[in-house]
């Protein structure tokens, strides 16, 4: 089987994949990153939106092997040190979701919309930019509000980061090593075993 190497949320992963494996299948089924959702599976709903080499793309319509050597950020890679990304926080604060199924895709798309347009885009422009993401619950009203607030917060964060001149240089979300979520069933089992041992030892002391 062909081998694929990707930087996913800052972790370099190498796995064997089939030729027809889609990026979304690779992320969900092989890496266990199930935050990226499959909605329509036909390039319309945007629930599978991730960042590839800096662009928001629909991961249901990209062969995993076509992304070989690339940098992928998924919804799991946005939060930083346990703190939500400003766009995630804005969706929470503005109730930009109901059932939440489309939300990871919206947030990933919104981060790129905010980077492109900044915080002052008018509502019509934002609705046009959200063209590739479908939400069947909210009617989009609060999503527009969330994207506006998130874009503003992203700009403020950037300004704050520049002032504090963070030594880690965290402006590029792709550059961070983020969560070390278990990526295979073996790893999950191993993690569980480690936790069991830890609990056992804690009892003993």
């Amino acid at each position, binding site marked *: 089987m*062909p081998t694929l190497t990707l930087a996913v949320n800052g972790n370099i992963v190498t796995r064997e994949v*089939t*030729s*027809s494996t889609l990026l979304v299948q690779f992320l969900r089924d092989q890496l266990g990153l199930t935050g990226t959702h499959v909605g329509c*599976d*036909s*390039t*319309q709903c*945007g629930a599978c*939106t991730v960042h590839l080499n800096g*662009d*928001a*793309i*629909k991961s249901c*319509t*990209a*062969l995993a*092997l*076509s992304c070989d050597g690339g940098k992928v950020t998924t919804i799991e890679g946005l939060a930083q040190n346990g703190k939500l990304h400003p766009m995630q926080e804005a969706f929470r604060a503005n109730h930009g979701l109901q059932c939440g199924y489309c939300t990871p895709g919206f947030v990933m*798309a919104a981060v*790129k*919309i905010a980077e492109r347009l900044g915080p002052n885009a008018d509502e019509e422009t934002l609705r046009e*930019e959200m*063209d*590739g*993401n479908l939400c069947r619950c909210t009617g989009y009203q609060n999503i527009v509000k969330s994207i506006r607030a998130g874009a503003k917060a992203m700009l403020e964060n950037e300004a704050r980061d520049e002032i504090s001149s963070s030594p880690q240089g965290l402006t590029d979300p792709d550059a961070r090593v983020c969560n070390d979520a278990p990526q295979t069933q073996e790893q999950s089992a191993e993690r569980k075993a480690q936790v069991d041992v830890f609990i056992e030892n804690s009892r003993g002391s």
Partner: protein
Amino acid sequence: MYPFDYHRAGNVADTLTLRASLADARFLAGGMSLLPMMKLRFASTPNIIDLRDCEELRGIEASYEVVRIGAMTRHVDVAASADVQAAIPALAKLAAGIGDPMVRARGTMGGSIANFDPAACYPAACLALGATIQTTGGDIEADEFFIGVFETALKDGELVTGAEFPIPDAAAYAKFRHPASRFALVGVFVARFGELVRVAVTGASRSGAFRWAAAEDALTESFSIRSLEGLKMDHSEMNGDIHGDNEYRAHLVEVMTRRAVLETLESAPAA
């Protein structure tokens, strides 16, 4: 998708060698049409040859007379190109209206014209501007390139490398888009070169994008929407489906042509 083998090479020459070594294969550009069609099993192939590493197929060059766009140039890059915006703003606008931001970040000009979806936008621009399609087999005029639905003059193993778009005095693209897919229910591209006017229609016909000769003659005679009065599109040749019957599409062609002419006049009044 039916199973297939995935291949890619680092440049066009090696890609053609690779293609020649395989009995049956399809080139993969942005994949925005091919992959969904393969998922639906409308299309299948034993071999996919990914063009992603063919850097020489990317890029935009503009001279005084033509804009050349490499086949693997993405819609987002055409839309954002200062050269295209300055030379043929209607073409930049067309690219900016394809699909959605995520589709424009993957989909390519070459993929769109090689696929020749009957509702794709680029074929209308190629026909109205009189583009030259450049392939590994030579140059093909747009009028000769587009043959029928999903059918072009490309021979087996021949690859689109780019297209040269002559720069018109004025042009506009008016698209009535499908509210969900953003494909053209009807799209009309009008281009004026001096007094000569070309009109191309996509989305409407049963046999893909076409030039509307009667409108071209009338507009070349006098470039105004008045020239279009009484001009009817024959609905028997139009596509009819759940989204709009053939009479509705024929009517839309007339309406979108008027809109495109008005926009062309606004961008540069007739000489």
